[in-house]
């Protein structure tokens, strides 16, 4: 038996197919989920992929956050189901307040698309166990609303509890506070990041490395061994 990992499609989602592919390459079953369905089809984990759901209207992720599927995702996430938010998915997770802080327009106001070096700061989450703490990875980054902000107290709390899961290395591409590229909730089941691991899972394309595959193998091992 393998794990079933749901990938949600909102109107305006772009990276659902790539995410499903990454899930399959890791050896799990990818289950497409639709934003209007409350039913999660008994998946073991959920990925909110990147894109521009609802055209980023109001705020990135603000309208998707109230879609029927998210009611169930929020409920299940609080009960411990692993959830990964990538890019727009991370924005949705901050809008739900499953993850603290918020995402804002890049400080230089440009859309950015580049290979980005990150340091995995927390290899203890459901989605990062196949990495080692301090490991450097290189995966694509592509967004215009990628600037992570939170108040000082929240930032200090995240740092103290080891909940800064990923930090930008070499260059801070968007003005994110404390170079934060991704964070986790206290339980380690809900993780969000701006860069795109699902675009770095095959040697043929992208950086020529498979640095992103670990997200999907991590969750698969966790679910299969559970």
């Amino acid at each position, binding site marked *: 038996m393998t794990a079933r990992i749901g990938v949600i499609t909102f109107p305006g989602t772009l990276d659902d197919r790539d995410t499903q592919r990454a899930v399959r390459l890791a050896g799990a079953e990818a289950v497409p989920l639709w934003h209007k369905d409350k039913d999660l089809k008994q998946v073991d984990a959920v990925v909110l992929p990147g894109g521009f759901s609802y055209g980023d209207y109001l705020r990135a992720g603000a309208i998707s956050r109230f879609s029927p599927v998210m009611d169930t995702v929020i409920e299940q996430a609080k009960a411990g189901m692993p959830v990964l938010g990538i890019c727009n998915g991370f924005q949705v997770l901050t*809008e739900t307040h499953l993850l603290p802080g918020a995402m*804002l327009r890049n400080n*230089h106001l440009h859309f950015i698309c580049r290979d980005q070096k990150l340091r995995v700061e927390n290899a203890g989450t459901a989605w990062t166990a196949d990495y080692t703490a301090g490991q450097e990875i290189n995966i694509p980054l592509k967004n215009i609303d990628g600037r992570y902000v939170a*108040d000082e107290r929240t930032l200090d709390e995240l740092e103290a509890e080891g909940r800064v899961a990923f930090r930008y290395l070499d260059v801070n591409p968007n003005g994110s506070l404390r170079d934060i590229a991704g964070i986790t909730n206290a339980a380690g089941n809900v993780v969000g990041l701006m860069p795109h691991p699902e675009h770095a899972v095959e040697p043929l394309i992208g950086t020529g490395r498979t640095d992103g595959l670990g997200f999907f193998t991590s969750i698969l091992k966790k679910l299969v061994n559970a």
Partner: protein
Amino acid sequence: MARVVVDVMLKPEILDPQGQAVQRALPRLGFEGISDVRQGKRFELEVEGPVDEPALARIREMAETFLANTVIEDFVVRVDS
């Protein structure tokens, strides 16, 4: 029908690069003397029925949960007369 306006602004401590870009463009266009610009959003709500305290309470709830993200934004609700 009555109109209620909700103004949403980034909190003062949050960097607003869009406002800064506008501010920097002003002198180039001959508009001098503006030391800072903050950019926000304005929602105009056409309300069915009376704009009484319960209606305003619903609108404040709407602003708090949806129109504004209070992690980064403040909002003001007022009746447009």
